[in-house]
């Protein structure tokens, strides 16, 4: 499978702070790639470099076979970008917010309605963007990113600040887009979202890629963090590491009929993150 996006040796500093240190990344066509890491780790900076909004100090980044710094205005139709700081025209209604871009790309009016329908905003065509809820604004931003039916989507924390139902809706839309063959590059600091959505992820820490691969592969590398949770009949809980010694202890407790339930806990991306940094991600 060819690469839709790639970065090689990308470094970027802001003043004294080295935000990115020789980052190498490759995103395959048709996959959902998640860039995860704590706030301020440089996730948005990577999107900006990939999309040519920001020049790296060193290294190369390529999007759809074109060097990010050589992107021409007409190339931008090939990918959709949804970033938190990409505003909407508050006074204009949903339809008009998209129609500007339909006019720019020479698309017909049906495209606007199709894009609104794809994100579940049918019926809100005449609602001013200012009157939409945060979740609906996110959907409208997503509709704007989708209007050219791009091959590559960049989404910067698409579910940040949304209620669980709205966030789930957005995730479902992204999975639908993946089914249609889109390559999706998303940033998030929500580990469970990354596990649910992404085919592969990169964990960004201290300006470098700390882990890279599929969520399952990464978690498997931290198998030593697997635990056994035992709920005792007296109401207490015990958490044991996955080891032969624990097996002996469990056998003993079973023989005494002291165990109510027993289950194993697999390492999650959250566990991996905690192992790597010693702290939890901000939710």
């Amino acid at each position: 499978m060819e690469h839709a996006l790639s970065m090689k040796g990308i470094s970027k500093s802001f003043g004294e702070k080295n935000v990115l240190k020789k980052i190498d990344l490759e995103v395959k066509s048709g996959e959902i790639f998640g860039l995860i890491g704590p706030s301020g780790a440089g996730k948005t900076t990577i999107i900006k470099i990939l999309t040519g909004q920001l020049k790296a100090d060193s290294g190369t980044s390529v999007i759809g076979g074109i060097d990010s710094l050589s992107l021409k205005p007409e190339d931008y139709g090939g990918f959709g970008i949804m970033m938190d700081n990409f505003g909407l025209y508050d006074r204009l209604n949903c339809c008009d917010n998209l129609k500007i871009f339909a006019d720019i790309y020479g698309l017909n009016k049906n495209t606007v309605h199709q894009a609104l329908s794809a994100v579940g905003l049918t019926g809100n065509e005449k609602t001013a963007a200012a009157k939409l809820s945060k979740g609906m604004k996110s959907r409208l931003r997503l509709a704007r990113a989708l209007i050219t039916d791009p091959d590559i989507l960049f989404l910067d924390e698409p579910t940040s600040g949304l209620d669980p139902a709205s966030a789930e809706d957005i995730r479902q839309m992204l999975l639908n887009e993946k089914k249609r063959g889109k390559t999706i590059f998303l940033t998030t600091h929500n580990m469970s979202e990354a596990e649910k959505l992404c085919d592969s992820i990169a964990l960004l820490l201290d300006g470098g890629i700390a882990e890279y691969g599929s969520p399952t592969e990464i978690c498997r590398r931290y198998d030593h963090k697997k635990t056994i949770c035992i709920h005792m009949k007296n109401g207490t809980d015990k958490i044991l590491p996955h080891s032969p010694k624990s097996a002996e202890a469990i056998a003993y407790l079973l023989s005494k009929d002291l165990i109510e339930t027993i289950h194993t806990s697999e390492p999650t991306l959250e566990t991996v993150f905690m192992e790597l940094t010693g702290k939890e991600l901000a939710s």
Partner: protein
Amino acid sequence: MKNISAIFIKQIKDTLKNKTTLIQFIMFPILAVIMENSVKIENMPEHFFSKLFAVMFVGMAPLTCMSSIISEEKEKGTLRVLMMSNVSPLEYLAGVGAYVWTVCMAGSVVFGVLGNYDAKEFILFMAVMAAGVLLSVMIGAIIGILCKNQMAATSAAIPVMMIFSFMPMLSMFNKTISKAAEFFYTQQLNKIINSIGNKDIEPIGIVIAAVNFIAAVIVFVMSYKRNGLE
């Protein structure tokens, strides 16, 4: 052309729902209509208010609207979206500039009608207004380019607008201000407009206005090259 037209249409839709911008466009034409029809003072020059307000309109509306539109788009991040959507900075400036110029020219028709010019004089009046509005649009674009947000743009636009808009009026009351005002295009427009139908236009006025125009183009190009649109 397609992109310029998309920006132009977007701006029309937006302004119809934006009272603060809309008022800039209609305030002076409405004031001129009211004052022309209600205030009659002995020895007052003919069509005094329509001519005075026409010059104030040129110095105020295009300048403040242009800077306000650009800075609002910067602040809200919509400009960045446009820049990443096949729209070049110059297309954006042309689209917004064409819109502001067109709406201001529509307002200028009101002053032209109030001025009671004959056909030839009316065309000359509109030509003078067109040049003045274009120059103010360019100054507004410079402010929009240099300022990062609406607050900064308003702070910068008000003193500039006061100078260009009010100096022709204040020069009637103070000789020093009158001498200083001679260097500004709005004062020269004031003189040219007052000459229409009465006397020959002084060539020096056209020269001063042209120098103002060239200076604005130079500052615009320098600001754009240094700062870009964003």
